């Protein structure tokens, strides 16, 4: 088992989730203005030359092009990257295939949020297993200081992130900011 700095991980998860939420986050303006990047360097010693925008408008554009406009290249939702369900009774054509929203991971995450008495932002109701929310939940677990629950959650819910980072590196249309960010996320949950 990897020894983790759990308080540090908790803070970093919350920090990394912010640009993945994009305009949904109340701290998105910090990302666009560069404050978020400065804090990443100051508090976590993580730097990358592409983790900045020339202007706030460029930040909005980067998020839209990478995650929101039709045909966007990346999907930060776990279900899409995993078989839809492990339930052998499911008989839909896609039941055991990848590429679909609302899979087991989404249902599990929705239940975990419910168990913890937490509300999923309505804008992400379709994707309780969005990477930003999973980082949030990981941060919450890390705050409790229980390494086993942290490792379990990473193994079961964040094992797809390295592939996402690889896709960000190879696919066209991914903004340099996110091409730089996703390997950092992948390293964080390794």
């Amino acid at each position, binding site marked *: 088992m990897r020894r983790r700095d759990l308080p540090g991980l908790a803070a970093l998860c919350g920090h990394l989730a912010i640009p993945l939420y994009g305009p949904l986050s109340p701290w998105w303006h910090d990302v666009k203005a560069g404050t978020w990047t400065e804090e990443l360097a100051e508090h976590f010693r993580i730097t990358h030359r592409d983790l900045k925008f020339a202007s706030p408008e460029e930040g909005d554009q980067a998020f839209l092009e990478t995650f929101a406009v039709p045909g966007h290249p990346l999907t930060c939702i776990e279900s899409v990257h995993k078989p839809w369900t492990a339930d052998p009774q499911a008989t839909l054509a*896609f039941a055991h295939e990848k*590429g679909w929203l609302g899979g087991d991971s989404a249902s599990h995450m929705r239940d975990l949020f419910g168990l913890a008495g937490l509300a999923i932002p309505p804008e992400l109701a379709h994707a309780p297993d969005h990477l930003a929310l999973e980082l949030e939940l990981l941060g919450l677990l890390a705050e409790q200081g229980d390494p086993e629950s942290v490792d379990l959650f990473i193994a079961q819910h964040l094992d797809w992130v390295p592939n996402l980072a690889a896709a960000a590196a190879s696919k066209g249309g991914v903004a340099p900011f996110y091409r730089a960010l996703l390997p950092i996320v992948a390293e964080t949950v390794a």
Partner: protein
Amino acid sequence: MKEITRRSLIKTGLTTGALLAASPLLDLKRWAEAAAAEPVQQIPSMCNGCSSHCGLVAHVKNGRLWKVTGHPDHNRSKGLLCARAHGAAAWLYDPDRLTQPMKREGDTFRPIPYEQALDEIAAKLKAVLDKHGPGALFFGHNPRETGVFYGSRFMTALGSPTIMTHNASCNTSLTAGFSALFATTPGADLAKAKYIVLMGRNPAEGIRTAHSNALAKALEAGAKVVAIDPRHSASGALAAEWIPIRPGTDLAMLLALAYVLIKENLYDAKFVAENVTGFDKFAAAVADKTPEWAAPITDVPAETIRRLARELAAAKPNCVIDPSWKGAFGANYINSTDTARACGAVNALLGNLGQPGGLTFSSAPAFGNLDAAKHPEPKKPTVARADGAGIDGEFPLAPTNGLPHYLMQKAKEGKVKAGIIRHHNPVRNFPDPKHMQDGMKALDLLVVVETHLTETAMMAHYILPEPTFLEREEVIEASPGSKPTIAMRVAAVPKLHAETRTFDEIIVGLAKRMGVGQYFNFTLDELNTARLAPLGISLSDMKKKGSITIDTPAAAPGMPKLKTASGKVELASAKYAKAGFGEVPGWTPPKTMPDPKNPKSFRLIHGKQGYHSHTATANIPYLLQITKDYDAERLWINAARAKALGIADGDWVMVKSKLAAKKVRAKVTERLHPDAVYLPAGYGSWSPYLKQANGFGISMNDFTAYQTEPISGHAMMMEVVVEVEKA
């Protein structure tokens, strides 16, 4: 590392995190075991995989769709669903769905909030109304009851009568033709027929499960089925006899059948005397339409035509020439409307109206209306339709489902300025996509309401996303038949994407902004309750059951009550004569014919596959995989003609017309008339947002010019000649 407080969008506290860490359900595997043990709920609703809207039961487990089955009480599904229903279930969880309103910015789209989208659309609609009047607005859709009610009421409130469907690329000619004789479009009692002629109709691939089952029942009972079709379709494979007719000449075949029935006194003279007007005029018109006349036109031996007429007569009245959907007399040829009239006439000569195994004339249960005192209805528009349907000097005999392709011509001429299109892809599904695109580009405002970013949505100024059919509730609708059904779509699962809205919500939002909100001062529940009132069914019962069979006394066999002026079958039409067309159907050759001197020249025909609903389902990977597994996107070409051109099965061929040149692989077969090449409809998508379908196969519409049939204005989808050569 310096200290930093964890920032979180979700509200957290120490207690919640501790609960989570301690819970056994944190382990996905343990959670999955518990989830698997949960019960499966059955929620009756309706399919949306094609235009039939069969009754469907959604099986739901833990709030997720688990499977779909046919609703046993719906007269179109009768407990069974086709492949498309199972495939369409995938739309719900498709990550490429439209999830939030989009606004055009140059060649791309940007998400915007719903309220902003509705504000901007309303402002632009008002600007068009102020400058150009309500005649410049239109609404187009593949009709679903919610669109029929809300879309029509909204357009009416704004003063526009131009409400259109997809039918001008489907069955407009059939509707116009049968209406002339019967004032309605009949069905066929296939299950009880002793003799069935399928004239281009293909129940084995143009599927409504109840129709397919009815054909199977007829076959099991020993009925003779004859398929008259340039192509040996899946229905032809079930038939006792395939008559490979030259495409576009079914009218000649029907006129010759009528000739034999009359000449040999084989028709039902008593039925005709009592129930038919215009017989003498019709008989005179076919007096020279001998089988020998028809044989060189149809490429069917005269003796075959004569025998067919005699066999039909021997089986009358329990026999039928299927009135079809699109078949030989849908929106295909310049003579399709008259082909439908002739089909109706031959059926009438056989006296099969209302008889077991003959033509059927059923009606849907009458729904109630909203209380007009509480919910005022908008006044009827006073301006003329913009699409020429029913308009003197344009297409006076065109049915009210309209002419979208002609409307785009009007848009290009600056006479139409704004429109709303819902669940309808005319850019891809009508001939000549450039014509359709140019028309849409000329609009000041195009709003598309969709679940996916189709070729038509790509032309929009605004795209408004709807929840899929499994997530929304709709207006109750009726399915006519001897055992009519009423059915309701209910949300089988919660709405997945917060920023999607149902069509009624969209229209109500727009109506309020447009100053016509008073016509929408009711909820969907109130509307549905009013519709159910005369039937004595409560809304809660309707939602619980999904589909309900309405007890209707079985009609005694015999002539139905027709709503024609005479109350009888009218073989001669004063309306047609007044509009300058033949009072009775007569022979009109196809507008285009392959060049007999050119070995590369063919008529391009098309048809449905049982596992696709045109382009609507081509992006569903599991349905598209069927196509791939069977190489089913290939162009069919007659074996002898292919040999002469050096084309072997599986070869790539180039298909050319004046509009396009495209490559596709060939299916070399003896199952096709030599004059024709055949493409399955539904492929050739170019929307990059339809990732599965994009670039797969080719479409007949790329080769076919924009054109309008003179009588009913339809798109003449098969009036196209192409050259085919080895690529």
